[in-house]
């Protein structure tokens, strides 16, 4: 394996070879911080021995010239984890960031979980990264102290130097790296972590993305830019309906196109589809354009598929009918039925949200080479280990024989956790005997996505004389993500923690339910996932109750949340573990509501905005981060919605890069605008109706919020997510603002479906 890889690596022209770099560094006597202090559970999960001695470093090394190389094991798709985690190591190592380079990890279970999703890169790895850096610092101090013949306790560090306090003598990290490398790795209890007050990078405004200079000069290497010498280009005509197989195809005209070499059929997956290739006919060509052009001349006839029954309008009716019937109970507090039976004022509402496509600016793309039973791939993937597993499964080889290098991702939003296009490249390479680059068109991207699910929600409340609910029933129905992994999955068990089984309101009787649904397209995670429709239903409904009670929306929301407390959630498994470490704290929830209201000047402005203008609010905790958003909406004479301002308050616990967090939440407001104003994917007879940015619009600068203010709550709580949590409160806050502006309640997205004037 090693030989082949080395050979292949020599062939890869542009992206840097981590192995090659490490090898060079090792030979030159670098200090390599061994993998030995990766926590036991990470090893235990794989049941494998620690890293072999020829490549002992997982996380960092220091070269004799002082250059520190830190390995980023999570993918960079724009959320900043490739910068944040190395910054944490740098801080505890007391290194100088300007002397740090970041090297991207290949897919390898020794890094633990590399699936860069769920907004948990910093949350899950903050403590470990601190420990890695701090351990290195202790070893460098020991090495310098030995050289000086003084006790290590008499030494300290300043960025990139060990300092002997009494004499003021200094040794650079590079100067003691080789000696430090020979020392035993100290035990965790002998490694002090910096007090927060001494952090130089964690939480500092000066942090900026490691890749920023390469990005603005066009030198950054995305998946679209990866190449292998001798590679051919492929564009794949996929079955229009999920699961269709090729009946026959005619490639005569395609083969006449200049630059087209041949066509290759790819088998349609065996259900469940998981991340397997969809199947279809690949056009192989000398360059991307020839492959695209040749594909236009292909004639393919497809077998039938059971999913050809998929039509969005009747499917919606089915979902809505299911939402009106009792479903699986996922949380129960008190007795909702008894409370409803008592009568009083009953309020009901139904909400609907359509499928969405991710539409990352970089469409799916990958380059792979199959040789001698092994695969080397370069891909913009959120999950290189899934690349290994998927390719191994499809080709019947061992996953250890699949090497996946990760480029920068031109956006991910969850789409790039699913590596079907990488598997396509590997399958084609095996057939062709040469490296293959598969490039999806935008049309492929939108029509063959793993779609954000379509959802119907039914809400019912009994309201007391004070306007507060005495009972609250919520039911949600949608094809679950589980259907991607099991054709039998009908209930969204894995999505209930995404804003459905954890309503933070102070209501004595509450029940949350989930009804069954079939799938007809591939369903997958999209930035904040089920939180999008769950928060839309819950916070639109909360606002409906506020208005029914004739109360101010912010005041009413605070009443709903109730007094500061830890909300008792009867959770199991990972969610229970999260709840232990990250209890749902209504004091933090209230605080973000209060800050968003204060910063937007809600009390003064929201009441007197005049015709066609209004403010709305929503608060939602997701990925363990508390977020409240106030949106100001302006509805013009044509019924078009404009967004003059957005104010978001965020409590994400301990943070690493504040300006990046503001950028994430500014971006979430734009992403939220896209799904609220335009986002809709529909199907006709199993075929997706949309294809490119003309009929699947995403927000342009002229429709984006004019001004987004992000206020970060100072907190020493453990770090929580930042990539996704900005999204869920946005659409309901906007629709609540539209109600304030027009008196029209928006109960389905996109809101262009609702006539506003």
């Amino acid at each position, binding site marked *: 394996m090693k030989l082949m890889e080395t050979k292949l690596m020599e062939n890869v022209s542009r992206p840097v070879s981590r192995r090659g770099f490490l090898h060079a560094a090792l030979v030159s006597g670098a200090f390599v911080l061994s993998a030995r202090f990766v926590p036991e559970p990470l090893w235990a999960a794989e049941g494998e021995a620690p890293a072999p001695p020829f490549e002992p470093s997982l996380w960092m090394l220091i070269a004799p010239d002082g250059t520190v190389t830190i390995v980023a094991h999570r993918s960079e798709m724009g959320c900043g984890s490739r910068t944040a985690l190395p910054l944490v190591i740098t801080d505890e190592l007391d290194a100088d960031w300007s002397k740090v380079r970041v090297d991207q990890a290949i897919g390898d279970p020794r890094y633990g979980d590399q699936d860069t999703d769920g907004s948990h890169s910093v949350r899950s790895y903050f403590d470990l990264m601190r420990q890695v850096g701090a351990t290195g610092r202790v070893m460098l101090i020991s090495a310098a102290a030995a050289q000086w013949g003084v006790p290590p306790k008499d030494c300290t560090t300043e960025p990139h130097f060990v300092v002997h306090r009494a004499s003021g003598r200094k040794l650079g990290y590079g100067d003691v790296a080789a000696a430090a490398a020979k020392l035993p790795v100290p035990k965790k209890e002998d490694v002090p972590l910096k007090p927060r007050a001494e952090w130089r990078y964690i939480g500092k405004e000066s942090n900026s993305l490691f890749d920023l200079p390469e990005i*603005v000069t066009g030198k950054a290497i995305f998946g679209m830019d990866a190449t292998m010498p001798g590679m051919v280009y492929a564009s794949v005509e996929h079955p229009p309906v999920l699961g269709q197989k090729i009946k026959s195809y005619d490639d005569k005209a395609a083969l006449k196109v200049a630059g087209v070499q041949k066509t290759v059929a790819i088998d349609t997956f065996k259900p469940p589809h998981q991340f397997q290739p969809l199947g279809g006919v690949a056009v192989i060509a000398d360059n991307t354009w020839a492959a695209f052009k040749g594909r236009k001349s292909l004639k393919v006839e497809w077998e039938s598929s059971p999913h050809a029954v998929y039509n969005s309008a009747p499917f919606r009716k089915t979902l809505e009918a299911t939402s009106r019937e009792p479903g699986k109970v996922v949380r129960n507090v008190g007795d909702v039925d008894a409370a409803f039976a008592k009568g009083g004022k009953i309020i009901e509402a139904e909400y609907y949200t359509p499928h969405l496509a991710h539409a990352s600016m970089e469409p799916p793309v990958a380059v792979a080479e199959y040789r001698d039973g092994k695969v080397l791939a370069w891909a913009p993937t959120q999950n290189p280990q899934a690349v290994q597993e998927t390719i191994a499964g499809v080709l019947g080889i061992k996953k250890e024989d699949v090497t996946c290098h990760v480029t920068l991702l031109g956006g991910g939003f969850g789409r790039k956790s699913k590596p079907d296009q990488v598997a396509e490249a590997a399958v084609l390479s095996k057939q062709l005997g040469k490296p293959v680059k598969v490039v999806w068109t935008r049309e492929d991207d939108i029509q063959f996505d793993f779609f954000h699910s379509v959802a119907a929600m039914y809400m019912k409340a009994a309201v007391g004389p004070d306007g507060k609910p005495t009972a609250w029933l919520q039911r949600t129905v949608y094809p679950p993500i589980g259907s991607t992994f099991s054709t039998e999955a009908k209930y969204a068990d894995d999505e209930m923690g995404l804003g459905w089984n954890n309503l933070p309101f102070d209501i004595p009787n509450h029940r949350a339910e989930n009804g069954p649904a079939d799938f007809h397209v591939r369903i997958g995670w999209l930035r904040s996932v089920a939180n999008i429709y769950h928060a839309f239903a819950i916070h639109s409904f909360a606002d409906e109750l506020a208005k029914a009670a004739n109360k101010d929306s912010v005041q009413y929301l605070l009443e709903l949340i109730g007094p500061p407390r830890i909300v008792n959630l009867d959770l199991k498994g990972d969610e229970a573990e999260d709840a232990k470490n990250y209890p749902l704290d209504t004091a933090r929830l209230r605080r973000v509501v209060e800050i968003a209201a204060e910063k937007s000047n809600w009390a003064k402005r929201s009441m007197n905005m005049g015709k066609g203008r209004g403010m709305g609010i929503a608060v939602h905790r997701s990925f363990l981060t508390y977020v409240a958003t106030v949106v100001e909406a302006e509805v013009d004479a044509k019924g078009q919605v404009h967004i003059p301002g957005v104010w978001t308050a965020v409590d994400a616990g301990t943070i690493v890069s504040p300006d990046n967090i503001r950028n994430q939440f500014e971006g979430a407001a734009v992403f939220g605008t896209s799904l609220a104003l335009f986002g809709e994917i529909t199907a006709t007879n199993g075929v997706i109706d949309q294809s490119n940015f003309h009929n699947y619009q995403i927000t342009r600068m002229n429709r984006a919020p004019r001004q987004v203010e992000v206020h970060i709550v100072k907190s020493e709580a453990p770090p929580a997510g930042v990539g996704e949590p900005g999204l869920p409160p946005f659409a309901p806050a906007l629709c609540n603002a539209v109600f304030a502006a027009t008196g029209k309640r928006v109960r389905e997205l996109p809101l262009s479906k609702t006539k506003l004037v």
Partner: protein
Amino acid sequence: MIRFKVNGKEKTFDGDPDMPLLWYLRDVAELTGTKFGCGIALCGACTVHQNGAAIRSCSTAMKEISGAEITTIEGIAPMHPVQKAWMEIRVPQCGYCQTGQIMQAIALLKENKNPSDQEIDTAMSGNLCRCGTYQRIRAAIHQAAKETA
């Protein structure tokens, strides 16, 4: 044979005259700073300059650039005031669309030394950013305008 210049260098092309400039730049000239986003001039990720004006290279055929001077992001000497402003405002998230945004912004500032918000919106609304960095793009253009004033 089509003759033209890319980043000041003489080039010739005798392949498919319908090939979009984008794919010539990326696959033939190996200038990958220019990105593929939509293929039909709806997203601006492929923006380059033809004789100084911003064009969408995905929808400009090779036969249309005969005699033209093409400038890509690689032909912009760093750090151009626009790139500098992009760094200072810390515009990018994923970064994929940003070379197209920068090329569009450079062309805008060449025509209009001090654009208003409205003028920036008009010039930049053909360039999509799925990460949603528009607010920072606007701020960076204002800053670059100040810098070059």
